[in-house]
C-alpha cells in the first residue's frame, strides 16, 4: 500500500496547510490545499522579508543557487515526468525546465553588463545605469506546460534578485507544488519563493491589489483576468508583465527590474 502525499502550500520556507483548512480536488483523488487570502498575505509578507537578503546576495551566489535548483530538478526527473503525465512530451518539458534554470543561472552576473550602461553626460559626472530588482513579484503561472512554463518566469524573476509569490495554475497545481520541494532543497533562503495553490477567483484580485507587491506576471491569466489584475494593479502603480509564454531573454529579466541611474561627481 502506497504512502500518499499530502500536498501543501510553500510559504516562508515551510510546507503548510491552508489556514482556511480547505482543500480542492484535482486529478481524481489528490487533495490540494485551497489557499485563502490570508495564505496569500502570509506569502507576500514572507517574500517581502526575504527580499533585502536575496537582493543583497552577490550575483554569483544567486547564480549558484539557481544552478543548484537545476541540479535538484534533474535529480528528480522521473518524479516530474510522472507528475506531468508521463511520456516523451513530459520528459521534454522537464528537460526544458532544467535548461531554463541553467540558462538563467548564467545570467545573474551578466545582466548588469548587458542591460546596464555608462552614459556620456555633458558635465563632470560619472553617470551609470544599473538594473535593480523591483521587489516582490507575483507570478500567475500558466496551466500549459505547468512546469517549464513556471520555471520560464520564476527563474528570470529570481535571477535579478526579486522574491516571488507563485500562484499555481488552478487546474494543474501539482507540478508547481512539487517544484516547491525542489526549491526548498536548493539553498534558496526561506521566503524567496512561495507557492500558493487555490482558486483564481478567490486570490487573483488580492494579488493584483496588494500594496506590498511590486509587479505581477500575468502569464497564466485569461484575458478577463489580465484586465482585472491590471485594474487592481493601478492602486500602487504595479508593473504588469505580459511577455509571451515562451520568451527567454535579458529583456524579460529586465522587466522585473528597475533601472537606477547615478550621477557621481568627478573632481579632486
Amino acid at each position, binding site marked *: 500500500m502506497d504512502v500518499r502525499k499530502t500536498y501543501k502550500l510553500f510559504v516562508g520556507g515551510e510546507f503548510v496547510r491552508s489556514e482556511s483548512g480547505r482543500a480542492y480536488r484535482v486529478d481524481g483523488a489528490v487533495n490540494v490545499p485551497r489557499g485563502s487570502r490570508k495564505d496569500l498575505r502570509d506569502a507576500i509578507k514572507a517574500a517581502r522579508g526575504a527580499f533585502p537578503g536575496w537582493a543583497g546576495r552577490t550575483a554569483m551566489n544567486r547564480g549558484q543557487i539557481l544552478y543548484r535548483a537545476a541540479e535538484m530538478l534533474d535529480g528528480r526527473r522521473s518524479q516530474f515526468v510522472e507528475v506531468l503525465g508521463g511520456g516523451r512530451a513530459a520528459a521534454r518539458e522537464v528537460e526544458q525546465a532544467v535548461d531554463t534554470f541553467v540558462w538563467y543561472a548564467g545570467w545573474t552576473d551578466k545582466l548588469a553588463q548587458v542591460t546596464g550602461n555608462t552614459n556620456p553626460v555633458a558635465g563632470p559626472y560619472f553617470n551609470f*545605469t544599473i538594473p535593480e530588482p523591483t521587489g516582490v513579484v507575483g507570478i500567475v503561472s500558466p496551466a500549459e506546460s505547468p512546469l517549464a512554463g513556471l520555471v520560464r518566469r520564476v527563474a528570470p524573476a529570481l535571477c535579478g534578485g526579486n522574491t516571488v509569490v507563485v500562484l499555481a495554475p488552478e487546474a494543474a497545481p501539482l507540478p508547481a507544488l512539487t517544484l516547491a520541494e525542489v526549491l526548498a532543497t536548493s539553498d534558496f533562503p526561506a521566503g524567496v519563493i512561495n507557492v500558493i495553490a487555490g482558486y483564481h477567483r478567490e486570490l487573483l484580485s488580492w494579488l493584483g491589489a496588494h500594496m506590498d507587491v511590486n509587479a505581477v506576471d500575468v502569464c497564466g491569466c485569461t484575458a478577463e483576468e489580465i484586465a482585472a489584475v*491590471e485594474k487592481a494593479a493601478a492602486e500602487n502603480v504595479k508593473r504588469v508583465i505580459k511577455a509571451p509564454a515562451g520568451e527567454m531573454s535579458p*529583456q524579460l529579466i529586465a522587466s522585473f527590474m528597475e*533601472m537606477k*541611474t547615478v550621477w557621481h*561627481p568627478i573632481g579632486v
Partner: protein
Amino acid sequence: MAITKHRRAAELAKQVFDYAPAPESIDHVKIEPRYNLFIGGKWVTAHSKKRFATINPATEERLSEVVEADEVDVDRAVRAADRAFDSWSRLAPARRARYLFRISRILQERARELAVVETMDGGKPIKESRDVDIPLAAAHFFYYAGWADKLEWAFPNRKPRPLGVAGQVIPWNFPLLMLAWKIAPALAAGNTVVLKPAETTPLSAMLFADICQQAELPPGVVNIVTGAGKTGSLVVQHPGVKKVAFTGSTEVGKLIQRSLAGTGKRLTLELGGKAANIVFEDAPLDAAIEGIVNGIYFNQGHVCCAGSRLLVQESIAEPLLEKLKLRLGTLRLGDPLDKNTDIGAINSKAQLDKITGMVESGVEEGAELFQPECRLPERGFWFPPTLFTNVSQSYRIAREEIFGPVLSVLTFRTPAEAVEKANNTPYGLSAGVWTDKGSRILWMAERMRAGVVWANTFNRFDPTSPFGGYKESGFGREGGLHGLLPYVELN
C-alpha cells in the same frame, strides 16, 4: 530674533547688489491670436467649437487661444498618425535620422524665440528656459536622431520593430522638453505620434508644429491636439493608439493605468515624487546650499523630481539652515523675462491654490514656517520661496507632492536612518546625496529606492541619462538607450 537677523542680512545684500532690470526682448516672437490643431502636417480647423485662452501667469494677460479638441478631432489626429505610420516606419532609418537631426538644428536656431515663448506661457525664469529647457530639448532630438538607424545595435539578437501610433500626454512644467522626451524616441524607433500638450502651456508645442513643417517632416508623423484632461483621456483611450506615454501626477497616472486595463496597449508613466535631498556633515556646505536651492526652487518647484525633503545630518543642521535662510533672502522673485530672475511665476491659479493649501496644512500641523522678505508682484500668480523646519515625517508637507517652492526640512543622525527616512514614501523618482566621501555616495546610491540619484548635484539632466521612477513614481525610462525600449516591439 533669527528672522530679524536674516532680514537685515537680506537688506544688506540688496544694498550691495542693486539689480537693474534686464528684460529679454520679445520683439522677435510672434504668437498667433489663435491656433488650430496640427493634424496630418497641416493646421486644420477643429470640429470642436470650444476654445480656451492661454495666459501669461506672470501678468494674467491673454497670450493666445487654442482649441479644446473633441472626439472627432482626436480621431482625425489618430487616423492621420495611423496613415503616416506605414511609410514612416518603412522609411530608410537613415532618412528618419535626418529628419530628427533637422528638427534638432531648427530647435537650436530658434532657441531664443522658443525660450521666450516658454517663459511667457509658463512663467519660468528666462534663464532656465534659455539655459536648460530649450538646449536640452534640442540635445534630446540630436541624441535620438542618431539611434534611428542603429536600433539593431541597441537590442542585439532581437529585431526591434515600431509599435504604431503613440498617444502622448505631457505636463506644463517643462513643456517643450517633455515634448522632446516623448516625440524624439518615438519617431526614432519608427512610430508616429499624437501629442497633447498641457492646457496651461500649449504654445511651445504650437511652435514645434511649425518646426515640423519647416523640417518638412512627412505629414501625420507628428500630430498635436490641444485641450485639457478630457482631450488627454480621448487620446489615451483611442483604439488606434498602440502605446501611451504619460507624464504628470500620480493620481492621473493611476487613472490612466486603470482605464487601459485589458486593452493590451503599452504604457509608460512618469509620475510624481517626494525626493529626499540628503546632506551629510562632511558635505561642502556652500555647494550643498546651492544644490538645495536648485533642488527645490528651480522652476518654482514645479519639478516632479524636486528635492522637496531636505534631510540634513543633525550635527550641521543649525549652520546649514542659517546659511540656507540667508540664501533664500537673496533669491530674486519677479518678472520671468528678466535675466536676473531666480524665481518666476507659479504656473496657474489652480496650482497656486494647491501650494497655498499645502503650506497652510504645514502650519496647522505644527511645522515652523520661514519665508524671506519678498515683495510679490500685484498681478499674476506668485509664491515666495518657503522653508519648513520642525517637520515630522507624518505631516502632509513631508509626504505629499506640493509641486511648488516649498521645502520640508528633517534631520537624521546615521546614514542608515537617512536611508530609512528617504525611502519612507510611496514615491521613488529621485534622490540627492551630499558628501565628500565617494564610497558613501555609492553606499547611499545602492540603498535608495529611486530611479535617479544625484550626488553633489541635483536636477541635472542629459539625453544620454535614463530618467524615471520606482514604485508609485511610475515605470519605464526616458532618455538614454533605455528610453528606446518603450517604443519598440522586440522579436
